[in-house]
């Protein structure tokens, strides 16, 4: 009985967190939030605009093939409040970033919503991150 209760509480808690996460612009059902991968590559473009900041980067996959990744972040206003700025990175920068990948296998990920920012290192410098 206690296990069932704990399971229910865990489910409610995760639902609550998900609910918080989806409130920004759209839901996050397209991403697998239980999975985190690390990408290492080069910034192609850092698009600091509404509704969400977007990073385009090139990174090699496990087979050594170059992939063009698209990484979503929170809205610019929320990234500013978390200590980021439009000059956090630029094309050509070396980047290592954690991201929750899309469920469908497309090279698209989400590294920040209003409630979290995953680990991001640009040219050896860690940018502000936070957990839920």
């Amino acid at each position: 009985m206690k296990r069932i209760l704990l399971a229910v509480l865990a489910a409610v808690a995760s639902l609550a967190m998900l609910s918080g996460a989806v409130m920004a612009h759209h839901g996050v059902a397209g991403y697998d939030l239980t999975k985190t991968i690390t990408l290492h590559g080069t910034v192609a473009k850092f698009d600091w605009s509404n509704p969400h900041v977007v990073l385009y980067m090139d990174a090699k996959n496990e087979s050594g093939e170059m992939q063009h990744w698209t990484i979503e972040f929170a809205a610019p206003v929320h990234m500013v409040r978390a200590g980021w700025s439009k000059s956090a990175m630029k094309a050509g920068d070396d980047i290592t970033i954690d991201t929750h990948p899309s469920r469908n296998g497309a090279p698209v990920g989400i590294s920040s919503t209003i409630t979290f920012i995953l680990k991001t290192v640009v040219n050896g410098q860690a940018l502000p991150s936070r957990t839920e």
Partner: protein
Amino acid sequence: MRIRMAILMIALPPALAFSSFLTAQSVPAPTGAKAQQPGLMSGGIPDLNGIWNPDFRGPEGVRVNTWDPSDPFATHPEKAPMTPWAAEKFKGVRPPFGALQTFDNTNDPVQRYCDPPGVPRIYMYPWELTFLQTPKIVYILYEYTKVWRAIYMDRDHPKDPENSWMGDSTGKYEGDTFIIDTIGFNDKTWLDQTGHPHSDALHVIERFRRVDRDKLELSVTIDDPKAYTKTFSATKVYKLTTEPMGETLCAYSEMKEFQENVVDRTQTPPSK
């Protein structure tokens, strides 16, 4: 519209100055002076002036996807107390939020067309708001999409108000609570992120209460007999902040680009 903007331009500077004055008034009074009750302006009026940030992390904060108290996490949005008219309308929504969320050709009017979010959906977003209290009009400025509302303190609703995105609002103070009564909506907006519809008979009552110096509580009551079989209410909490409001506009070109470059590509079947 020009007249309203002119009023705003004229009203804002003194209102801001008034706000600074009020902030100064919140400094503890010297010994012997008449103590002012925290959170109240002279005359006993609740002091709501300032910038407020939604507390989406607290227990009330997660109640973001619906105003239906029986379904705070929007796990069963289809079970809201809808009339047959509203239930039929709800069948056609394709929301990007909640348990029924989909990105396949979503018809969320905000996300798809950058329509104004309307009231009360404006409170579903995690962005700040600013109160500016003047004797005759209280302004609420919303960071999300930079919309603002004028709450008229010195008149009733027009007998036959125009149908508008943000409605016609009148306000009054009752003790420590600021009550806003709004009617005169169109029926183009959603009540919440999950696509609950409303009719042009929507009547929204907002109750703002400054619980303490840093905490503002908002209770929203939905009254729409054409769309719902009963009234219902939910509460949100805001925290006082010094972070100035930024630019969170819904620019259609940016929204479309984001939809195509990011959101659409996470959908099944996968695209490039």
